[in-house]
């Protein structure tokens, strides 16, 4: 197990190093210069040069790459070119919006999807199953930004139950925050819920074919009872894996939704930073997201390996 862990850890480090290289150099070739962008069309060349020097953009790329990666190891992500505040602080601020939004969406999707999936599995082939499955087909097919537009049109503009967007701010209390995140969370949750319900259903159906389920049924339990007593626990592993994956997707995947609802989250930060060519912000945020996924994968692999020794031999 130690050998396996070390090996996976080494590969994690290599992955991170390769990712940082890729991110930095692909983003750095982007046409457009942050200093020129800041100073606009009347700027004189010497002014642009002065600003470039002030921002440290005149330092060779390789040196900047090394400084960036070294800084990240100590939690220092550098200074934003446009905002001139530490990137780490900006990211932390934005996480206070994106994290609750992702969690809210995840909670919603889980609350809808798991019962729906269980219900469909229990009624396999019957009308209820067909209805749930058709609903999930619709759910995965609806673009979330279109759904968001419709929610705003109906619930904010016509009915005026919710604000058309914006973040209430934590100083207004949890209730206000949740209220302001409700429509965005619903838009994000819909396709996720549809996927999750399908995974839940098929995981349960797989489990139901296992021997111990047949035994349970043979002992006289009804399908629903067996499902609750034995099936659910065993079906949770694939479901939890999907939930884990969805979470990291939700954190960054809100990029368009945050735009529609003008939420000051991580996605909107990246979007703004891309158009302002605030490259260091883009690089750092993308690196962080990649880091999160790679580490989660690493943890999942280790967990699986701990449970199932065969996996260790495989890789």
């Amino acid at each position, binding site marked *: 197990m130690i050998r396996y862990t070390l090996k996976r850890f080494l590969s994690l480090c290599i992955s991170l190093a390769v990712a940082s290289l890729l991110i930095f150099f692909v983003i750095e070739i982007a046409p*457009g210069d*942050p200093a*020129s*962008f800041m100073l606009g*069309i009347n*700027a004189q060349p*010497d002014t642009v040069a002065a600003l470039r020097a002030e921002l440290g953009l005149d330092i060779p790329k390789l040196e900047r790459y090394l400084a960036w990666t070294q800084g990240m190891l100590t939690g220092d992500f550098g200074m934003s070119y446009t905002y*001139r505040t530490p990137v780490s602080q900006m990211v932390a601020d*934005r996480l206070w919006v994106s994290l609750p939004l992702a969690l809210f969406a995840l909670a919603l999707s889980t609350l809808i999807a798991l019962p729906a999936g269980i219900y469909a599995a229990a009624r396999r082939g019957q009308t209820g199953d067909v209805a749930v499955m058709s609903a999930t087909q619709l759910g995965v097919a609806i673009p979330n930004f279109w759904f968001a537009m419709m929610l705003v049109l109906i619930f904010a503009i016509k009915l005026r139950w919710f604000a058309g967007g914006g973040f209430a701010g934590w100083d207004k209390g949890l209730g206000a925050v949740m209220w302001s995140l409700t429509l965005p969370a619903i838009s994000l949750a819909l396709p996720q819920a549809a996927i999750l319900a399908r995974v839940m259903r098929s995981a349960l159906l797989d489990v139901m074919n296992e021997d111990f389920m047949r035994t349970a049924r043979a002992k006289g339990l009804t399908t629903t009872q067996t499902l609750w007593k034995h099936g659910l626990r065993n079906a949770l592993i694939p479901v939890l894996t999907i939930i884990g994956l969805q979470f990291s997707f939700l954190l960054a995947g809100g990029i368009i939704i945050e*735009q529609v609802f003008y939420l000051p989250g991580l996605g909107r930060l990246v979007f703004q930073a891309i158009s302002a060519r605030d490259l260091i912000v883009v690089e750092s945020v993308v690196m962080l997201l990649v880091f999160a996924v790679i580490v989660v994968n690493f943890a999942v692999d280790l967990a699986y390996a701990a449970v199932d020794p065969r996996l260790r031999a495989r890789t």
Partner: protein
Amino acid sequence: MKHFVSRLALASALSVAGFAAHAANTDITVAMQLEPPHLDPTSAAAGAIDSVLYSNVFEGLTRFMGDGSVVAGLAKSWDISDDGLVYTFILHDNVLFHDGSTMDAEDVQFSLNRARADDSTNAQKALFAGITDVSALDAATVVVTLDAPNGNFLFNLAWGDAIIVAPESIDGIKQAPIGTGAFKFANWVQGDKIELTRNDAYWGTPAVLENVTFKFISDPTAAFASVMAEDVDAFVGFPAPENLPQFEADPRFQVLVGSTEGETILSTNNKMPPFDNVKVREALAHAIDRQAIVDGAMFGYGTPIGTHFAPHNPAYVDLTGSSAYDPELAKKLLAEAGFADGFETTLHLPPPSYARRGGEIIAAQLAQVGIKVQITNVEWAQWLETVFRGKDFGLTIVSHTEPMDIGIYANPEYYFQYDNPAFQELMTNLNATTDPEARTALMGDAQRMISSDFVNGYLFQLAQLSVAKAGVQGLWTNAPTQATDLTAVSWAD
């Protein structure tokens, strides 16, 4: 400091809640599309910085009024020497910065010298190019010496890039600006809002409003929803003209339609064949139906222009007739220029909807006379690099929002690359002329010259569109500069 800021935020939050109960309102939430990248008007071109801070937090020696006139600001009065080279400014007394320090001649000297220094990062450094010396005679007197007479100097000093800052607070200006204005900076939630509070120690007429929140809503749908749902009290520079009739029909709102300084033009690369041929540019001008563009892209808001000059300026000459819509004439001109079968070119469109929508319409109109246009949507950063600096474009649409900027046509290196010595001489004369009547005549000549050379396709003057709740009064209708001056704004009872 952080602790202090958060307590302030909390205090303002409480007061918002408090005022919701009463109806007497001294708070306002104003939305705009773009968020400032930082809060230093003297080191970025971003109009959003001025939109929040100009006049509200920062002031200069002179200032723009809502009607575009330039009046005294921190300078109480001034005296210009007979040769037009020496300006002596007398400053107001008792002007305090928000940190309690006094604003005096040394701050003015510091601000102007900082803007024109070698390592200056002022986006409009050219405004200060003629200054040879700034000296403080005493605490309330500043003498500025120029190398040549400049008829625009007082106008230049009114720009947001020329506001007065203090050396003591300059290091923190990007995050916590310290100015002399009627409002103090209170709090900034990046990506979301900026809050200002009233400066009770203001030297001039104090503001009526106590708390001001600027919200940043870039998405046009969200902008519409925010106003409709009354999440904001006003939206300055509303991005979707198509929604204005709905606000006009709704008694809860008022719509303000004014003008900006933005001449929206179909910029043409004068050095790139076939646009180096004046006949082709003339054909282009006649192939464009301005009214259809104003109707289609701006839903009727905007004044057609025939030259690079703001129609509300007294010196404006209406030249739209010399490039009237006439596709047959355009085809004939193209044939004369040797392009009877038309040609292909590119059209780069930056993000604003006037460009994106106007571009689609222009492409369709040019197709009618045989010019095939390939549209490329670009972001500003890309536009600056490829179009503006790289000059790698055929056509582009952009609104030149700087006030009184016809002088850009005197620079042959400017991205549309108009190189006419006669025009350059005209501009040199204009800059050296201070007599108002002579200036008007020269400006008329300049407008006619670029119009008859068909340098660019002149489309329309960009309208300034704002929506506010019916009770809001005192907002600027026009946008003589990028500003949201709230110092005179109040709620009707």
